[in-house]
């Protein structure tokens, strides 16, 4: 096999088959995928959660992960946030002609590893190769299917005044890692992406605490955006206690230099849990026992005032709005 991906390998012919066998089956293979029928035959009953996401991250390799691991974690987490046990994933690859086969294999191996860790199976896939210049290296789409276990399922519409808002750990790690390793940026902070599948943690939460109202992973747009969405969906206000919000020193310093706000940076291994105040301590205990929730904290509460808005109580006791961003965060000038 050539050490670069060729257009032939997306043709559906022999070259495609070799690529599928040598790379995809090798790392992702399982009895359902290996049957190679036009569609995967699955058994499921009861309510299902389905989510799809496309991954175009640049750079494709970054400290703490890569586009492959992210494509698994991201979709697993979206399914898990509905109080579901993620079972199956499908994946579609769009690869730029000339992409290094070694890099593809590294990405697919990383997907396999992430899927095994999350205990999900990749049951269907597709590969397209497009001419050089018509896609940036590699794009991956994954769709996840999971069985909903919580009844009623957690939802952004269910936050109630009096609920506590919990975050499972430090914020902004993934966003700053990716931004600071993007080409052309002469700033490299010693930060690492937090990307991880949260489904084992969410399962523990919903099994022990059927009263969980909302689970959400604050990915693009960060904590601030996710909480605004919840406040709007549930028509409630959310008041946050700024000093309680965990941000690592490295992320804070990096954000200061670049003029970014960690509360708007993406996370890929964190979850927001909203539930009645009286269960907050129990939720914290469960989260802190899990490696992905060691730094879990209560960061605020849901109120009836100012529906649809998120207000931040600052360290010195002042208040300010924590709104949604218009577009992407732009680094400031001075």
């Amino acid at each position, binding site marked *: 096999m050539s050490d670069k991906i060729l257009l032939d390998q997306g043709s559906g012919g022999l070259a495609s088959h070799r690529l599928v066998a040598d790379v995809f089956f090798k790392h992702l293979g399982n009895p359902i995928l290996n049957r190679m029928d036009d569609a995967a035959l699955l058994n499921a009953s009861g309510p299902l959660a389905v989510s799809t996401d496309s991954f175009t991250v640049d750079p494709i390799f970054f400290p703490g992960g890569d586009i492959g691991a992210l494509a698994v974690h991201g979709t697993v987490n979206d399914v898990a946030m509905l109080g579901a046990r993620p079972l199956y994933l499908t994946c579609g690859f769009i690869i730029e002609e000339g992409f290094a086969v070694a890099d593809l294999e590294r990405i697919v191996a990383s997907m396999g590893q992430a899927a095994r860790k999350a205990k999900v199976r990749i049951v269907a896939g597709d590969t397209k190769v497009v001419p050089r210049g018509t896609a940036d290296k590699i794009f991956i789409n994954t769709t996840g299917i999971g069985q909903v276990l919580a009844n009623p399922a957690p939802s952004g519409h269910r936050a109630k005044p009096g609920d506590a808002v919990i975050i499972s750990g430090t914020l902004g790690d993934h966003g700053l890692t990716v931004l600071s390793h993007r080409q*052309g940026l*002469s700033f490299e902070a010693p930060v690492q992406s937090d990307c991880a599948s949260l489904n084992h943690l969410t399962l523990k939460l919903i099994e022990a605490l059927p009263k969980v109202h909302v689970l959400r992973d604050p990915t693009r747009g960060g904590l601030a955006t996710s909480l605004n969405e919840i406040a709007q969906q549930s028509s409630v206000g959310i008041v946050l206690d700024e000093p309680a919000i965990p941000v690592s020193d490295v992320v804070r310093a990096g954000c200061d230099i670049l003029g970014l706000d960690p509360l708007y940076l993406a996370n890929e291994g964190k979850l927001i849990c909203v539930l009645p105040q009286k269960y907050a301590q129990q939720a914290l205990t469960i989260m802190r026992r899990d490696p992905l929730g060691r730094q879990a904290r209560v960061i605020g509460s849901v109120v009836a005032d100012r529906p649809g808005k998120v207000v931040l109580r*600052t*360290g010195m*006791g002042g208040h*300010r709005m924590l709104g949604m961003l218009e577009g992407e965060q*732009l680094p400031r*000038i001075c």
Partner: protein
Amino acid sequence: MTSSDPLRDPARCKELLAQIEESVKGSTLRFMEVCGTHTVALFRSGVHSLLPKSVVHLTGPGCPVCVTHESEVAAYLELAGKEGVIIATFGDLMRVPGPGGASLKKAHAEGARVEVVYSPFDALAIARDNPGDKVVFLGIGFETTTPTVAATVRIARQEGLKNFLVMPFHKLVPPALDALLSDPDMAVEGFMLPGHVSAIIGMEPYRPLAERYRIPAVVAGFEPVDLLQAILLMAEMKRQGKPKVINNYKRVVADEGNPKARAIVAEVYKPVDALWRGIGTIPLSGLGFTDAYRAYDAFEVLGVELKASKPLPGCRCGEVLKGIMRPDECPLFGKACTPAQPVGPCMVSTEGSCAAYFKYQIDLNSDR
């Protein structure tokens, strides 16, 4: 977000707030900050929400994007999309609206080559990688940003790099303060002076504030305690009728500033008259290339000129920048002009006064 830092200590802040309240008793004071980082810090820390109602803190021309004149915006937009030109810019400028709703973001979507950089050195690297193109760096910013740009131009000359150009839109703070204070509409009673700019220029350029205009001024840092101390110092000077210029940010700002940085700037640039949005021409408030560095002037090399351009219709950014109008007093604020559809630049930049107001202010109908 720990508050073990004494500069963020809530108890100390409370104490300072009480002292400010005591000091301003019975009087109404209008202070102004002239630094975008202060604008954001005053909101983000919650200082605005805690100040007594009688202390009004206005936002002056401290955001480099906001003061960039519409003619300057039109000039760089004219270059974007030209064959063989790559625009390199700080991200803030991407969304700034120009004539007919144009912006760099739109130009980029239409195929113009626009690169967002975090430092002029990144722009230099783009120039090295694209020897067949002219890379035009948009040199906006105050005294803080200029030394790095000047140093980059110097490196370009040392390397004999001929395709790196700068549009010098740099602005100088002291002439702007002078212009504000000479404006009869202005009613500011104290200036919170920028921390980073002062670290470069030192204290000397501010002397006329106290001596000529009899206005208290304090160089301040960016932590909550820094901000409150500066406000208290201004209030106290006002109460005692003894205006002075105080350096309250000594941990960063030396009284003599940074002569080395100034020397680099003086080698590459010379003061020239400059256009400020909403204010107009302020004598010697900008920088142009010295003769030795003319080959790096995008205006000269590419034959671009600043043309008279109409102000954006309905936009009152000028009055906001002069502190005559609060952002939410502008009839367009939050209605026709939002971060999604900015009419003027003050709504675009993260440090713009209108954008900060829109983003952080809790009750837009309150008195502050």
